[in-house]
């Protein structure tokens, strides 16, 4: 029993470390991004970080917002194809080699990074970077063990 409680505790701890990202499918046509930001603005949702990946035909907008559940609902109701994905927000030392150190830790554990992007604002003396990895729990584990600061969802939403 004690063992399983410990695991539950760990799992809970890892979950607290995850940040909910909103992804939105956008056709490559004018006005679509503006439409998304309008919907969010009307719901008083603030964008903390964003990135767009695009091909010739479509784009995928990824957002970190202060209220992911409301954002998901609002965008869905506005007719967008939306999904949520767990990502991690990592504090990277604001100095040469800061990001390299984090990447090296992940690489040592063979953790694949799908993509990453930076926050619009940064914490004191550190940049905030969003990592989307396949093995998220392992990533949290290795970063924490190496004293890399990870900002949990609640910290990020209220930045």
């Amino acid at each position, binding site marked *: 029993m004690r063992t399983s409680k410990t695991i539950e505790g760990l799992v809970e701890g890892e979950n607290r470390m995850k940040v909910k*990202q909103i*992804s939105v*499918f*956008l*056709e490559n046509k004018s006005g*679509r991004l503006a439409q998304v930001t309008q919907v969010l603005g009307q719901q008083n949702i603030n964008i903390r970080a964003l990135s767009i*990946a*695009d*091909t010739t*035909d*479509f784009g*995928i907008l*990824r957002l970190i917002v202060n209220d992911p559940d409301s954002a998901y609902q609002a965008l869905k109701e506005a*007719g*967008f*194809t*939306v*999904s949520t*994905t767990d990502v991690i927000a990592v504090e990277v030392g604001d100095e040469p080699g800061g990001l390299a150190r984090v990447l090296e830790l992940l690489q040592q554990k063979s953790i694949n990074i*799908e*993509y990453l992007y930076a926050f619009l604002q940064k914490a004191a003396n550190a940049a905030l970077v969003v990592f*989307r990895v396949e093995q998220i729990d392992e990533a949290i584990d290795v970063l924490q063990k190496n004293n890399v600061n990870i900002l949990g969802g609640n910290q990020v939403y209220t930045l």
Partner: protein
Amino acid sequence: MYWQEEYETMTRDKLEELQLQRLQQTLQRVYDNVPFYRQSLDEAGISPGDVKSLADLQKMPITVKKDLRDNYPFGLFAAPMEKVVRVHASSGTTGKPIVVGYTKNDINNWADLVSRAIRMTGGTNKDIVQVGFGYGLFTGGLGLHFGTEHFGATVVPISGGNTARQLMLMQDFGATILACTPSYALYLAEEIQNAGIDPQSLNLKIGIFGAEPWSERMRDQLESKLNIKAFDIYGLSEVLGPGVSAECSEKKGLHIFEDHFIAEIVDPETGKPLPYGQPGELVITSLTKEAFPIIRYNTRDISVLNVEPCGCGRTHVRMQRVTGRTDDMLIIRGVNVFPSQIESVLLEFGDAEPHYLLVVDRKGSLDNLEIWVELNERFFSDKVRALEDLENKMRARILSVLGISARIKFVEPRTIPRSEGKAKRVVDKREI
């Protein structure tokens, strides 16, 4: 100027006498060998022995594509397999193709009809015919091939595609006749221009084009760009393949080879036969086929019949070139495509209610098919790679099911127009 003058120029009276006699034989054959037709004849109260006039044929129900599909693969064959020497197949509206068979006599008759078509264009046995129709289950390639050999001209069986090679052999072998789809011919014409080849330096003089609708405008383009005379050939595998009808030197409609077929035009709404001169659906009955006779097959092609005497001396009725269809079938690069086939592929991918649109365009001279698919949450991913993988898998599946390449384009939900009742599935931007 004729291949089988006796048949091609026989008086209408004689022709109808021959048709009646052959119709009786055909009905007897299907009555004896094909349960599907026996039931139709019994239900219509027709005994093949008492058919006294061609009008009696109209008591038979119309055969549709679904009937052919329901009898997949050999259910409508009227000859034992030891007499069947070849099969062809065309894409059906769902996964299974429609299969047709030929006896040796069928192949010979077919070759005669293609020979008639070649002769009608002015061809002789000195000609070299480059057959750029696809070889294989599709009837175009092998149909023209056997016809050309039977006719005595030289056949270059290059099949479709591989344009650089087509041009090289056209120059080196000196093809005088080109047989392919009109859109591919137009593409070849452009490539000839791009390669800096003077069309006058080629030996080409005749084009025999078919397997897809084309227009007088395209004929003008083909004739001037390739320095040829271009002729239309019509056919469909359900009935025979190319050689059901063909254009003569008058170029005023395609003579339906009436010693082998009975053509009717029916009202698309009521299915009732219409008089000569009125447009409707072309319905064909075969009169000589042994392995796969067909009774009153609705081609869904829209045409008009003209029985006025023709300047070429042939007495066979002429059909106006096909301008459209009454079903949603598209012909893309000579391949028949039904929206329902695309739908079945999307269903395979787990889209419970696919919303899609087929956008067909002609860029230059080649048809392009884009399939717009509304991307729902089930398919959506935050990873570009995952969406591109999905696109590739869909494209590969469409290629394997339909035999044509298409571009998949994901679009946002509710962006494809919905209309009451039947959804709009096709936007055809081609101007032919």
